[in-house]
């Protein structure tokens, strides 16, 4: 090994650094100031969806909890009335909790949901200072309403929202 060999090697390495610095695009994202968009099938924190009319899609059937392999979901149902309506049909989730420390983001809950109410969203910013903060309640999971008059519960016309699961018109659908 010659005397200059280390210097040659070192300048080769530095040259590589210089090359990528000058000619390659930057991949570092300045998180949290800057955020990268996630892939379309990314599975992040859950969101409870609403219909266009503002009613909650969730009917409190608890099938997500049944499908959950980590036992992270707890659902308790109550009865809707036309005076105080949360969701279409007779039943709504009066309690909906997901323990994010337990969740393994497998998406089974999404698959089990008969109304497409629960969706794994694109939010991956989950950090807690307390274990109890890891339990997301219905309020924090529910999608916000587009306008103030669409809040739930609300009074609706009698006999309009009788069915929990949207009716399937075409059997091949």
């Amino acid at each position, binding site marked *: 090994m010659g005397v200059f060999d280390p210097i040659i090697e070192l300048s080769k390495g530095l040259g590589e650094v210089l090359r990528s610095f000058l000619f390659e695009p930057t991949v570092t994202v300045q998180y949290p100031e800057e955020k990268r968009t996630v892939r379309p099938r990314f599975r992040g924190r859950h969101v409870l969806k609403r219909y266009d009319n503002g009613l909650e899609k969730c*009917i*409190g*059937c*608890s*099938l997500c*909890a*049944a499908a959950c392999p980590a036992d992270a979901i*707890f659902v*308790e*149902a*109550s*009865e809707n009335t036309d005076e105080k309506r949360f969701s279409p*049909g*007779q*039943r709504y989730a*009066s*309690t909906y*909790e997901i323990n994010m420390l337990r969740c393994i983001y497998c998406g089974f809950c999404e698959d089990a949901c*008969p*109304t497409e109410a629960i969706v794994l969203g694109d939010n991956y910013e989950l950090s807690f200072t307390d274990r109890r903060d890891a339990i997301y309640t219905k309020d924090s999971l529910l999608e916000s309403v587009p306008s103030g008059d669409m809040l739930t519960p609300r009074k609706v016309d009698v006999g309009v929202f*009788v*069915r*929990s*699961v949207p*009716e*399937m*018109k*075409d*059997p*091949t659908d």
Partner: protein
Amino acid sequence: MSKQVTITIDGKQVTVPEGTLIADAAKMAGIDIPVFCHHPKLEPVGMCRMCLVEVGRPMLDRATGQVVMENGLPKIQFMPKLETACTNRVSDGMVVMTTTDKAVDGQKGTVEFLLTSHPLDCPVCDKGGECPLQNLTMAFGPGQSRFNYDEKNHLEKMVPLGELISLDRERCIQCARCIRFQDEVAGEAVLGFDERGRNTQIITLSDPGFDSVFSGNTTDICPVGALTTADFRFGARPWELDAEASICTQCPVGCNTTLNTRREAKAGGDVVIKRVMPRQNEEVNEIWLCDKGRFAYHYTESKKRLVKPLVRKDEKLARASWDAATKFAAENFSKAKKDMVILASGRLANEDLFNLKSLADTAGGTAILYSDMGGGDVTAMVGVGQGTNIGKMGKGDAILVVASDLYEEAPIWWLRVKQAADRGATLIVANPCQTKLDKFAKFVIRYAYGDEVKTINDLSKKSKISDEFAKAKNAIVFYGNEGLGLNGSSVLASACGELLKETEHIGKPNNGLVGVWQRVNEQGAWEVGFRPEPDLEKALKGKSVYIVGADPVGDSPALAKALKGAKFVAVQDILETATTEIADVVFPAQAYTEREGTFTSGERRVQRFYAAVPVKGDARPDFAITSQIARQMGIILEGTSVSVVFDILVNSVESFNELTYERLAETHGQWPIVGRGDLYYGGTTYENTQGLGVQLGSLAETGKTVHIPKVRKEAALRPKEKELLAVPVNKLYDRGVTINPAQLLNQRVGEATVTLHPDTAENLGVEAGARVKISFDGISGEVVVKIDDTISTGVALVPRSMGIAIREPVVARVLSRVEGKVK
């Protein structure tokens, strides 16, 4: 034993009694034929066509009547079309094929048709998860329907049939199980079909709707989610529930139940009871449960539950530690010596009562049973024999019901007695007023209030009725305290005992005397040595009283007065009552749902119950509290393990001979098979895996001579002019502390009433529905008049526990009009 026939189902040979239905025979062989309308407890109708199978019978030669043989085997002739396994009875040599392409095709077709109009409600349906339609759809349903969904029949959803049961007309598949249950089993035809074809609907024919105390059972046997209870509405999904075995505490039948529990956010994250389900015990409640047992459990979770020991300080009850509270009580009881009185009710478990009795015996005090009914010593002598099963009684047997309205007091006994009468048993009902059982009785004896003993004694004389009773193969007598107090019922029990002894209906299974007690474990209280006291007021005055599981202050102003004159009052209960308010020290006890123990039913069956929910607050089990007080008095009683208390009990109480907790937990196979998630659907009744209990042997069974105790009958009351004889009667839904917290049942409780004969009412110048004032013994109260022409004149029937303190027949002084007719 009936003739046995051998048939072949799917290549498997089965030998079953002649007359068995193919579907049942297959189940016995472990083969599930899918069913909807067929239920082994109901008559076959063949309405749903789900059980289509191929049936072949041996071919007979028309000329000789002999079986045609082919290659040394009988030639089997199959019907060209499928037959229903639920309506065809087995015959010798029959061959049934349930899994051939032809049979499965038929079954698939049935499911496809049923689904053409069944709504997609499974996610919100309370039956979802334990629904046979779901199971059968998974097994036989078409992957895709050929049906256009726009043509689905839309009907009303959630129609309340009564306060307790709602009907979803869309989900109903018209199997008629509910209608048939009401007609055949309950004998109350309050449901029926309306309209025809695709519009066929279930309707209620009664007013108020679904007027039956057995209505909850229809939700169990409904094979879809058409009938659901208002109590469990959206309570939880069935797979989320935990199940723990228990015993119903509402009446002396001792129905086996399963408590379904779950953690509930509404209850602050506590584990609570979500619903009470029947647990199969063919010798006790079969697979049924009455509405009181099903819906009245809420009291154990009432806001009025006691959670901390309380000690009276400066006229006020203040929280104290267990040590301080028990020490305070122990000091007072030690001082009282012979003046210590323990007043306990039959709501307690055997172990609790035994510890209390031991404390009374060792400390020299007296133990009194808080009850208006006597005769437990007679039932211990001539009670029904071991192995008694009313469900097996029928032709040639006799059942006598005297001074008891079983429908109001012990509905499941009513149901089973009625069914025994349906099977041909001679039913004799002796009651001073009309009861719902009269309709099914062969003989109805109507006597005047006060004549019950004479009526029973007359059955020893020669008459058509007494002949039939004496000649019966087996005979059971149910006696109660309808219209009677402690003395009256004690005398009646002795008279019934004598009658059974004379006719030799004692010491055998299905023979003997059954007391229709007011509380679940009164028979157990008698067994461990508790006795009621005729003059309770005198027994309490000036004494140091330890009241357990009873509310004498709330029940009777006279007892309240007596207790105010007591030296010291310690109260141990699960709920705040009027009695805890006057107590010097209060101990919070655990409800039966929070602990283990045993109850003795009216048929003297000892059964275990288990802990289902966590303990509320600092409550402790009754036997442990007693033991702790005893310890402070220097008396050692077992107080940690309930099974050890039971062992000690068994060693000291003769009738509990050699019982152990293990024996009580034994089970054996039962028919029909219910409670499994299989295709042969028997209902959501739970399978019994936690114990069938053991019946105690009566004295008559030991072969010892039976001497029925003689009780002196008190002189009959003679009302003067303008006075009436007021007698207590029992109501199923009353205002007792165990019913009040159940909001659903409250709607059926109604107002306090007084029932009069039309002539009596006319003499008093009152009409039905009028509001009147009744007064006796310094008590008075407002009641609504009811008219009944089946009772005798000059009496007024006043229900117990409905706000008027009546414990025994009394002379009621006046009935004065309060206001005009009330709607």
